[in-house]
């Protein structure tokens, strides 16, 4: 897939494994739209003493457009798609931490794995990760009021611990399984884990929905509310199918088991599992 859409946008090809961490928050179709080739190549992205520029780290080809493609795999590529508001940022390879941070729109496509704090503070747009994502997906960072507060994240693989920590709105779809403590301190939004939840999901969650195939271990402060045919699950499923197409999770069975919690807080959150 490399080199796709070359005519319609810029392509950055990593010359060699980066010698320092790179901050890619300035690389988005909107931010580069009015910059010359020289300005783009001169943009500082290095976070170390040498302060690498885009031109130092990447071979740059193509022209400005709605899509930017970054080819090259590296956990040192941080803040990929941070602040993205429109267009598409496609990364062929892995990314480091904070990808999609405070993203408000557009699409961030990661054809690889993502590091921790993917989608932290995100309020809009779509992030699609074809591999795994590490801890604190959609989580909160020091100084933030909330974690993820809108938009949609789809992870084809598994995700790490404490996904959706203080999440406010938005939807996280995980094809695989979540790590421990998904939905910790959650205030709203939805995490749909097709492969199920790891131990202790929803620790201190106030509101929000965790939907999945199973739970490894429930907290004792979650209570069984019985087997129900919930209209909102249908609405959610159809909304995701309409907006995500093939990326949408498979529909839940008609009846789900509703487990409410965390009763240690206001208990308006819920874990929905297939009802037996």
């Amino acid at each position, binding site marked *: 897939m490399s080199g796709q859409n070359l005519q319609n946008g810029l392509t950055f090809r990593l010359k060699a494994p980066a010698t320092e961490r790179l901050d890619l928050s300035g690389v988005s179709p909107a931010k580069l739209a009015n910059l010359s080739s020289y300005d783009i190549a001169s943009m500082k992205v290095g976070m170390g003493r040498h302060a690498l520029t885009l031109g130092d780290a990447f071979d740059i080809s193509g022209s400005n457009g709605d899509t930017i493609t970054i080819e090259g795999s590296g956990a040192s590529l941080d803040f990929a798609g941070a602040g993205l508001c429109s267009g598409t940022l496609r990364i062929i390879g892995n990314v480091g931490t904070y990808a999609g941070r405070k993203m408000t729109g557009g699409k961030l496509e990661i054809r690889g794995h993502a590091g921790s704090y993917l989608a932290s503070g995100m309020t809009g747009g779509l992030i699609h990760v074809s591999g795994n994502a590490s801890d604190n997906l959609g989580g909160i960072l020091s100084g933030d009021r909330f974690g993820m507060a*809108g938009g949609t994240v789809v992870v084809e693989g598994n995700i790490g611990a404490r996904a959706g920590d203080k999440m406010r*709105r938005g*939807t996280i779809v995980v094809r695989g399984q979540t790590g421990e403590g998904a939905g910790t301190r959650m205030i*709203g*939004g*939805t995490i749909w884990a097709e492969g199920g939840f790891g131990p202790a999901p929803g620790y201190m969650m106030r*509101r929000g*929905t965790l939907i999945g195939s199973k739970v490894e271990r429930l907290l004792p402060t979650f209570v069984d509310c019985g087997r*129900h*045919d*919930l*209209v*909102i699950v*249908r*609405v*959610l499923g*159809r*909304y995701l199918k309409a*907006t995500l197409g093939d990326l949408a999770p498979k529909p839940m069975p008609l009846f789900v088991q509703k487990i409410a919690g965390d009763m240690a807080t206001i208990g*308006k959150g819920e874990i929905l599992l297939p009802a037996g």
Partner: protein
Amino acid sequence: MSETLKGKTVNGVFVDDTFAEAFGMSGTGIIITADSMKWAKIAAVTATGFGTSVIGCGAECGIDRELTLDETPDGRPGVRVLMFGFSPDALIGQVKNRIGQCVLTSPGSACYAGLDAPMKIGLGKAPRFFGDGFQTAKKLGDSRYWRVPVMDGEFVIEETTGCTTDAVGGGNMLIVGTDRAGLLEATEAAVEAISKIDDVITPFPGGIVRSGSKVGTKYKGMFASTNDAFCPTLRGATKSELAAGSLSVLEIVIDGLTSKNVADAMRVGLKAVTDIGAKKGVTRITAGNYGGKLGQHHYHLKDLI
């Protein structure tokens, strides 16, 4: 009856050269779903009941159409209802009361926005408080859905729906006949044809009005009174519009989200009646107006046949 009637005869039915005079209104759409079409319709019929005339009912309401499973947000059977009022503010109270009393209470029901428009009015904003603090919200895209715990599960209702001020109320046609049963049959056919036009309703019972009104009355405190010129039993006693032999007059009133919707509905209604023609005792089609001075929208029958 006036001796100088102008018009055109179509299949034995005389169509007056006159126009229906209609008014600008505010309109909204609401989708109501349930576990079955039967219960979606029960909720919708109840919510749109007592919604014939904005003057006495506060809003003019009706079922626009049945929806396919693909068209409803929850994939269940559903219908779309339309409500029309004098203003968006007037609609807010009507929507709140009708949904709160008639849809929230109906088994298995859910309620969603049925009109996509820049202006929004509350749909679930008030009914959600029935949840007494147990209600929760789910925001998906630009829509917020409230989940109100009720005794048969949850009542799901979208927070807002669209509202347009481009709506039109009062498109109409009066159908005159010499046979009451035949006239009713022809008028029913017109209502059936109009029901296939999207974005319009015929808010009166079964879509038909038998008590057309004129503006004004001899009594204080009333705004409208019987349209004596079209009452067959007063033919000799008042300045009648009816020819000898006219036994009955039925009216169809049409509200639509746009002026074009109303014109389209009148067109198919007129066609349905003239297709049946004189064989069912239909003699004439005319329309109600106020001389063109009150309503902003004029629908000339000659342009629609």
